[in-house]
């Protein structure tokens, strides 16, 4: 179509720009036209012919193709298409032809005027050019004349010009020479005036020339003079440099000048460092003086401030100046500087550590943390400047170490606080009771201890929390984000404290002074309750608190709450068991003495319950009250109303009678044995020192078991007369009357007491038991 028409024409003509048949969609057409253009210019076919129906350019049947052959096309149409389609294509063809015609017409009309005006312009240009040609000819002749003149003038002036040039050269040379001749005096003047910079510049300028012409005697003299002066200059500079009083920047200037004078850089940098060292050491000395034992040391914040501004600042200056001056030295120079900084830095650190060590005893964390923060922050600058010296790392290490020590200190503090609490409790317990007025109750003491420990823990947590505060420069170090929180605070401080608390408490269980009961039993009881409370609530509370305050990101394993709780529970159990042992022992001793010291063979007929038994009951009641203050009641086997007790005791004593009745009818020697053995077969074995549970009844049961078993063993070691036996009978009945209420299973008391009486009967050559009714009367009277 339109594109096909342009395909053969020159590239100049705008293809497909012309408006085409309005029936074709514009974008599609344009794309087609582009495809044609590309084809023409040999561009890659694929790019343009993205359309799947991309026509084969060689196809003779392609109406738009370059190789279109109307005959072939017609043949093809005639052959392939049915009539209807032929008609359609014919009308289509006609329509397209018409459209093309009208397009062509429009084109012609549009361009006609342009052609005409172009023709006019060309004609005018032709006229103008002709005029210009004449002018150019005239110009050429004039120029030739000028050239001629100029050549003549040059020829005449040539001679003089050469002389002037030579003179100018001589003048310049003379000025230079003058400078050279004047140089020694100038230099001297400069040196006298102290304008060292100027002098060095002059020297630098003259140096090369003098070097070049030194074979001439006069120059030689100048050079010698200059060298002498320069040497003096260098000496003066060095002198100034050595004096060192004028501060780092001036020294740096001196060094710069000396370098410009060509002094050996290595030597200079050595000297520079020596001087810097002198200054920094002075700073260190002043720091050390502050540290000294005699004057009242300034607080740690002030100290680190001094250190930071004095030493670290100085070090920064030195490092900066050094790097500026001796950059040319290369890696060797940098190494030297690093070694220098490292050495001085380590001395500084030693001082800081000494100072921080003095601070360890103190309780104020915030000041310390601020000081550490300053310290750390100050050192980051030289750290960046002197990465090789590793000052920042060392500083971080120091901070970490201090933090660790701080944790240790807090742990000790907590332990001390705990021990202090214990001492208070001891004192409170030992304080003589004012008659009628009870001291602080155990429950109150327990609450006091618990709250004081908890507040100490919280205070410690708050104190160490300062180390991880956002605004502190070292808080984002990996140590403080991870290990400090998990291993340090959680494990080291909190878990460590709970463990040490348990250990301290447990140590009361196996204190060597077992006999005297170095620890008051009430303290054991209180500690046991404390540990139990920790197990049930406090531990998980503290750990949750810790985990919240120190968002632990470290993945290292930590002690789970359950383990700690189990430890606390174990401690509580051991303490309580020990309490039972101690109290049981007290009562046992009483019973034992009472059995061992009495002459049971020649005792009189019992009239009373022995005072010891009353005492035992009293003590047991007191223990009951004491335990009741801290522990719950616990479960006991049902069956104890007052009435049942009464009937039971009657039954029991009658049963006792029945039990050892046969033993004094001398027919069967083994009856007693048999009976008691049979009874034992059916009763459970009694574990005397068995572990107790956390309730009052269990505790009391344990104590009574221990006491009664002691009574039994002691009775078995003695020989009783008739009345001795009866006394035992009365005593046992009395105990039975009063002890049942304390134990979980009153059957247990009966069993043990029965066995005591039975054993006493066995140990009696003449066993005549007392009438149960009489026993009862005596007991009730007592």
């Amino acid at each position, binding site marked *: 179509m339109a594109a096909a028409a342009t395909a053969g024409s020159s590239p100049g003509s705008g293809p497909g720009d012309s408006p085409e048949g309005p029936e074709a969609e514009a974008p599609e057409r344009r794309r087609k036209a582009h495809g044609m253009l590309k084809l023409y210019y040999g561009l890659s076919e694929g790019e343009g012919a993205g359309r799947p129906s991309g026509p084969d350019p060689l196809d003779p049947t392609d109406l738009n193709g370059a190789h279109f052959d109307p005959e072939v096309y017609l043949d093809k149409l005639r052959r392939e298409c049915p009539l209807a389609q032929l008609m359609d294509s014919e009308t289509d063809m006609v329509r397209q032809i018409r459209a093309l015609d009208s397009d062509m017409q429009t084109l012609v009309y549009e361009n006609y005027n342009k052609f005409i005006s172009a023709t006019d312009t060309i004609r005018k240009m032709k006229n103008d050019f002709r005029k210009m040609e004449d002018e150019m000819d005239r110009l050429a002749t004039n120029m030739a004349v000028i050239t001629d003149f100029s050549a003549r003038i040059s020829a005449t002036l040539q001679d003089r010009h050469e002389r002037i040039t030579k003179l100018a050269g001589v003048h310049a040379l003379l000025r230079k020479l003058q400078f050279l001749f004047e140089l020694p005096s100038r230099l001297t003047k400069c040196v006298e005036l102290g304008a060292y910079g100027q002098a060095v510049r002059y020297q630098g300028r003259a140096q090369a020339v003098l070097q070049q012409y030194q074979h001439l005697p006069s120059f030689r003299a100048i050079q010698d003079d200059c060298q002498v002066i320069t040497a003096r200059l260098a000496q003066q500079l060095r002198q100034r440099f050595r004096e060192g009083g004028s501060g780092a920047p001036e020294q740096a200037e001196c060094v710069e000048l000396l370098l410009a004078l060509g002094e050996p850089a290595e030597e200079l940098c050595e000297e520079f460092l020596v001087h810097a060292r002198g200054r920094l050491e002075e700073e260190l000395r002043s720091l050390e003086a502050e540290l000294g034992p005699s004057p009242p040391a300034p607080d740690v914040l002030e100290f680190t401030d001094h250190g930071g501004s004095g030493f670290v600042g100085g070090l920064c200056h030195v490092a900066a100046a050094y790097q500026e001056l001796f950059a040319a030295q290369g890696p060797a120079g940098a190494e030297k500087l690093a070694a220098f900084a490292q050495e001085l830095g380590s001395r500084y650190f030693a001082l800081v550590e000494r100072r921080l060590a003095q601070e360890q005893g103190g309780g104020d964390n915030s000041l310390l943390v601020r000081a550490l923060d300053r310290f750390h922050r100050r050192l980051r600058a030289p750290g960046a400047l002197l990465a090789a010296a590793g000052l920042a790392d060392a500083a971080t290490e120091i901070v970490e170490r201090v933090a660790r020590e701080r944790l240790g200190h807090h742990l000790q503090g907590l332990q001390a606080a705990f021990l202090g609490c214990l001492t208070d409790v001891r004192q409170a317990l030992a304080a003589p009771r004012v008659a009628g007025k009870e001291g602080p109750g155990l429950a109150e003491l327990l609450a006091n201890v618990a709250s004081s420990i908890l507040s100490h823990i919280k205070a410690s947590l708050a104190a160490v929390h300062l180390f991880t505060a956002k605004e502190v420069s070292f808080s984002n170090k990996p140590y403080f984000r991870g290990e400090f929180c998990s291993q340090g605070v959680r494990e080291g401080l909190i878990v460590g404290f709970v463990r040490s608390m348990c250990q301290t408490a447990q140590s009361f269980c196996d204190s060597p002074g077992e006999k005297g009961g170095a620890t008051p039993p009430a303290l054991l009881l209180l500690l046991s309750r404390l540990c139990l409370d920790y197990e049930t609530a406090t531990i998980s509370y503290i750990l949750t608190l810790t985990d919240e305050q120190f968002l632990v990101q470290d993945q290292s394993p930590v002690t789970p709450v359950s383990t700690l709780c189990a430890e606390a529970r174990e401690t509580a159990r051991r303490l309580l068991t020990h309490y039972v042992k101690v109290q049981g022992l007290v009562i046992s001793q009483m019973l034992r003495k009472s059995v061992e010291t009495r002459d049971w063979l020649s005792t009189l007929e019992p009239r009373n319950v022995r005072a010891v038994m009353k005492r035992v009951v009293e003590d047991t009641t007191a223990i009951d009250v004491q335990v009741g203050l801290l522990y719950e009641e616990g479960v006991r086997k049902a069956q104890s109303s007052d009435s049942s007790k009464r009937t039971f005791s009657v039954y029991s004593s009658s049963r006792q009678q029945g039990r050892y009745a046969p033993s004094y009818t001398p027919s069967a020697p083994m009856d007693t044995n048999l009976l008691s053995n049979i009874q034992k077969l059916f009763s459970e074995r009694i574990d005397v020192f068995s572990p107790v549970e956390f309730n009052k009844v269990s505790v009391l049961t344990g104590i009574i078991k221990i006491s009664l078993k002691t009574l039994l*063993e002691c009775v078995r070691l003695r020989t009783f007369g008739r009345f001795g036996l009866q006394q035992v009978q009365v005593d046992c009945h009395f105990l039975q009357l009063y002890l049942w209420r304390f134990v979980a299973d009153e059957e247990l008391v009966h069993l043990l007491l029965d066995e005591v009486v039975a054993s006493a009967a066995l140990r009696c050559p003449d066993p005549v038991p007392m009438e149960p009714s009489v026993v009862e009367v005596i007991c009730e009277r007592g």
Partner: protein
Amino acid sequence: MEDDAPVIYGLEFQARALTPQTAETDAIRFLVGTQSLKYDNQIHIIDFDDENNIINKNVLLHQAGEIWHISASPADKGVLATCYNRTSDSKVLTCAAVWRMPKELESGSHESPDDSSSTAQTLELLCHLDNTAHGNMACVVWEPMGDGKKIISLADNHILLWDLQESSSQAVLASSASLEGKGQLRFTSGRWSPHHNCTQVATASDTTLRGWDTRNMSQIYCIENAHGQLVRDLDFNPNKQYYLASCGDDCKVKFWDTRNVTEPVKTLEEHSHWVWNVRYNHSHDQLVLTGSSDSRVILSNMVSISSEPFGHLVDDDDISDQEDHRSEEKSKEPLQDNVIATYEEHEDSVYAVDWSSADPWLFASLSYDGRLVINRVPRALKYHILL
């Protein structure tokens, strides 16, 4: 195998006193003394037939009184000493005497078929240890290695060394010492050390252990507060001369090095009531036997403080190299102290336990209700120790 099962023997009376027949090294034989206030007391000679698991007994009458302590002479099978109560109108006095049993019972258990009906034979009194001046006898111990001529008896607060003369028919008080101090000091128990030429005796009184030199009856060492409460018994390690074990009312068994008396070497706390008796095995001192009033007998393996801390040292040359090698390997693994077994055959307090003098793997325990139980060390352990 069934022969690990315990063998039980019942006495009619209460009993506290038990001893192996020390001089007998072939037959397993124990002597048990009864306690009865109303009937004649007896000494049961109990023979245990290891192969058939049968007990044979012979009964001797001990009419002097109820027996609190019994010990057999290490030199003469037929000689034994007892401490017994003599009750005389409203006074009880514990005396001690040396006895000889009838010849035919000494080493034979040819139990006559009619033993139950036949009148029990009586002990022949050799001599009486006169204690009128010294008070109640707590125990009598024989010089362990000697010829059965020397005995020590503990009476209240006196320690008395006797020489038996004229074939034991006369006891002469050779020397004595006594405890002085406030309160009523009373010895509860004593043992004669088999080491140092048998010149040392250790005693227990209240919570204190004391060592005595028998040559001049002076105190050698003193372990104050060895136990929290009364010390009930002690025993010397037969192979390590400075080691001794003690037990007491604090339910603990403690092992001491007498050169350092401030701290026990080791403490066991396995019993739940007073421990009345502790005994080292005579040959394998890692085996320690304890009896307690919680009715249990516990056999412990105290390897770490025994004379064979690395297991049995193989010194037999005829063992093949391979075996040698193996045993060496075995000895390298650290051995743990542990409880080997807890024997619960008793139903009353166990007041006496002891090893057989003939078979080192066999022991007897006696509870108050008169039950004697004979047990063996578990086979596996026995082989472990031997091989």
